[in-house]
């Protein structure tokens, strides 16, 4: 198949994908979004003959716009701009999960310091304040007291980008020192791992220790529902254990999987490429019908 990789940085994840695609003899076109223009009637990017484009943009803003433009040229993109739009924004992500009936932490969004403080006080301490856009656990605050809340809100309002003036306040979930990352393709799990840390943030990017995790029936169903809620695709679904159940706190759309690949026996890039091949086949079949 003819496959495009949309990127602005090649991380180990992209190298794993590129390697697998080339080993299988696919024709790979790397598209550095920094070097192209995207117009209403076409782009300088070489997308015309591609069966599918995989969005691996590190920058959320680039991911959102480039995928939308490429779709407008009639080229399928994974993940779709619709999925990216929901997953890139924690508030939209939470709404999509709640609307689909997926259990997710209680969340409030406020637009002023005063209103955010009311939300924080209503949650009680500790609670969590997150940027609506961001990753790798950056600028996440666990708020333990009113004085800490006042300081953080003041800093965000004064120093932040306008998106940091959208205050996303969430209940603090007492998880058992770990959370669960599931990589899934259209809701079908590829593999899952726990990320453990003594720190309240357990992200692999923050140094959380990883271990393969076997999903039970409830988790499998949640992953499928969470994937459907955001429009499907190649996704990282993050769950936390809450006693005998789970809560889904986030679905990631340009998911990193190098840590998972090392934690599991599953050949993650191989399964992902299997799925990409099925996507390209769907496109070919659709064209044959037309």
């Amino acid at each position, binding site marked *: 198949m003819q496959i495009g990789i949309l990127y602005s*940085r*090649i991380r180990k994840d992209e190298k794993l994908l590129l390697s697998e695609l080339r080993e299988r003899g696919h024709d790979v076109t790397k598209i*550095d979004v920094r070097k192209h223009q995207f117009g209403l009637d076409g782009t300088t990017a070489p997308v015309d003959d591609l069966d599918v484009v995989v969005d691996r943009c590190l*920058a*959320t*803003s680039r991911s959102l716009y480039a995928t939308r433009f490429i779709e407008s040229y009639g080229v399928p993109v994974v993940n779709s701009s619709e999925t990216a739009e929901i997953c*890139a924004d924690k508030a939209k992500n939470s709404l999509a999960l709640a609307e689909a009936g997926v259990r997710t932490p209680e969340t409030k969004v406020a637009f002023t310091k005063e209103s955010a403080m009311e939300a924080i006080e209503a949650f009680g301490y500790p609670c969590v304040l997150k940027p609506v856009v961001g990753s*790798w656990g950056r600028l996440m605050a666990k708020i333990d007291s009113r004085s800490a809340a006042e300081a953080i809100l003041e800093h965000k309002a004064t120093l932040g980008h306008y998106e940091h003036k959208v205050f996303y306040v969430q209940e603090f979930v007492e998880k058992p020192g770990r959370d669960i990352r599931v990589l899934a393709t259209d809701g079908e799990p590829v593999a899952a791992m726990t990320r453990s840390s003594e720190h309240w943030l357990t992200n692999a990017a923050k140094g959380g220790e990883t271990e393969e995790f076997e999903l039970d029936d409830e988790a499998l169903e949640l992953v499928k529902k969470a994937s459907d809620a955001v429009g499907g695709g190649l996704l990282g679904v993050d769950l936390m254990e809450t006693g005998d159940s789970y809560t889904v706190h986030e679905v990631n759309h*340009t998911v*990193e999987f190098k840590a998972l690949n090392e934690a599991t026996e599953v050949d993650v890039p191989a399964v992902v490429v299997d799925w990409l091949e099925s996507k390209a086949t769907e496109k070919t079949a659709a064209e044959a019908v037309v």
Partner: protein
Amino acid sequence: MTEAECAECGATLDLADDLETGEIIDCGTCGAELEVIDVNPPVLERAPELEEDWGE
């Protein structure tokens, strides 16, 4: 294994054979993040700084 020069400190870096344009390399001498601009021959430049909206 090929070699290239760090754009920050000038140290010589040993690079893997499967180098990709767009890949980020850390200089073992000065710690700078370097982006692979070309692979044949390898050319390295200082990588762009991370921004808040970067990541998964």
